């Protein structure tokens, strides 16, 4: 039985094609992935990402637990600030990639991947030597994301919170349509925008209000299909693709979320060892040169020899090219390396390029 998000019926009524995503019945697309993708790049898109998990850590020593289980330096967060971080196992591989929100010095709010939320919760609870209250609160929140250059104007019509004062990776608790909402200037698309955490019972009203408020700006409801092509262009990792329990931040191009000067953390010893030994493989971006599309799991060759695998791949609507990310031996991972992607037993030429593929105009 698939888990239901609060708005599943609303999506069906909008004509969404629903799919099983990690055990949740989720909208894949409404009108078409390309159209939805372009709406986010040029105007705005509205996503229901209520499958995402929320884990809350409270207590006088909440910071100690957050610092131990995550790689970024949460001691640097101010109230109302967010950062991207890694949740690692002792062996250095990713349990998950997460967003850490500091609500207060004694309350941290973690947004985690849907299919990882239970194991993340168990992992964090198992490391809790500081008497913190750890709650697995995924079912207590719906999450809507309004993303795109027009997102601030659209959301501003529905809230008294001065959105211009919420800088990138900051959040505020306020109201949207008179409903309590945590309003975070974060996203997974490479565009400006907001992620809203709401009570599940308030989500339908806010969803419809955002679509109404955004109509004049060209907002479109967007599914997981466009969410994937958008995050791929922006070079953002997806758990189960670029990162998993066998991958450390060093390979994934995510050493920037590992703060070595913060003190000890779960997984640190193994990461240090791996760093000292030298990182053998690294994540690289690629563009197809020949006809064909490199897809997740396809073999990558260099000089005719097996060299790695594609983690995510597909067409980039913004660049009008076929792009992707792959793991390669470290010496081949720098931009400009000629590689071949095995597309249905045939080698197709590609070249490594920098990540991200797309940056929004400032």
């Amino acid at each position, binding site marked *: 039985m698939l888990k239901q998000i609060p708005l599943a019926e609303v999506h069906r009524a909008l004509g969404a*094609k629903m799919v099983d995503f990690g055990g949740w019945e989720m909208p*894949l*697309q409404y009108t*078409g*992935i*390309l*159209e939805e993708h372009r709406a986010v790049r040029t105007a705005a898109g509205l996503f229901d990402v209520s499958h995402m998990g929320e884990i809350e850590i409270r207590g006088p020593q909440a910071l100690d637990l957050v610092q131990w289980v995550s790689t970024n330096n949460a001691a640097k967060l101010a109230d109302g600030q967010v950062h991207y971080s890694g949740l690692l196992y002792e062996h250095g591989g990713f349990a998950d990639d997460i967003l850490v929100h500091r609500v207060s010095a004694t309350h941290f709010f973690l947004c985690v991947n849907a299919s990882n939320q239970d194991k993340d919760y168990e992992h964090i609870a198992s490391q809790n030597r500081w008497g913190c209250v750890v709650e697995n609160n995924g079912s207590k929140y719906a999450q809507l994301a309004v993303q795109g250059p027009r997102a601030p104007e659209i959301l501003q019509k529905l809230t008294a919170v001065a959105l211009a004062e919420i800088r990138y990776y900051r959040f505020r608790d306020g109201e949207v349509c008179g409903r309590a909402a945590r309003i975070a200037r974060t996203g997974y698309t490479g565009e400006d925008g907001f992620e809203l955490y709401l009570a599940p019972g308030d989500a339908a009203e806010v969803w419809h209000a955002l679509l109404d408020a955004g109509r004049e700006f060209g907002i479109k409801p967007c599914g997981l*299909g466009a969410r*994937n*092509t958008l995050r791929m262009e922006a070079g953002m990792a997806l758990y189960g693709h670029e990162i998993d329990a066998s991958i450390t931040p060093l390979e994934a191009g995510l050493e920037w979320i590992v703060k070595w000067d913060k003190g000890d953390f779960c997984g640190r010893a193994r990461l240090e060892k791996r760093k000292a030994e030298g990182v053998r493989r690294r994540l690289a971006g690629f563009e197809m040169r020949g*006809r*064909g*599309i490199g*897809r997740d799991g396809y073999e990558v060759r260099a000089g005719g020899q097996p060299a790695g695998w594609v983690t995510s791949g*597909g*067409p980039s*609507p913004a660049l009008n090219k*076929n792009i992707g990310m792959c793991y390669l031996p470290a010496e081949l991972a720098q931009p400009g390396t000629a590689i071949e992607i095995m597309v*249905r037993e045939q080698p197709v030429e590609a070249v490594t390029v920098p990540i991200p593929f797309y940056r929004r105009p400032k």
Partner: protein
Amino acid sequence: MSYPENFRYTKEHEWILVEGDTGTVGLTDHAQKELGDIVYVDLPKPGMAVEAGKALGSVESVKAVSDIYSPVSGEVLEVNGLLATAPEKLNEDPHGAAWLVKIRLSNPAEIDGLMSAADYQAYLGG
């Protein structure tokens, strides 16, 4: 979109229009809807032999890649060049301008094993 009465259909959502010993093959409207935005079509070259029920080529949407199966056995006579430059036509006109290949049938009796328009619509409905 309606399903033309003079086509025959496969369970894998291809259609074929037989005229003399030549069959024109395409993807059904149902198939293009299921695939979503089509961005790439890989087809055999003229002269290649194809076999009923075996992969003829592939079609890729933004999301995924799917095989196209040949409804009949025979030899590829012609490939629709339009799809190399405008694969999105498969979303717009799957039963017309976006046909895939023309095949010279080596065993016309194979057609009898395919579905009529009514059968195919019942198959989709069930």
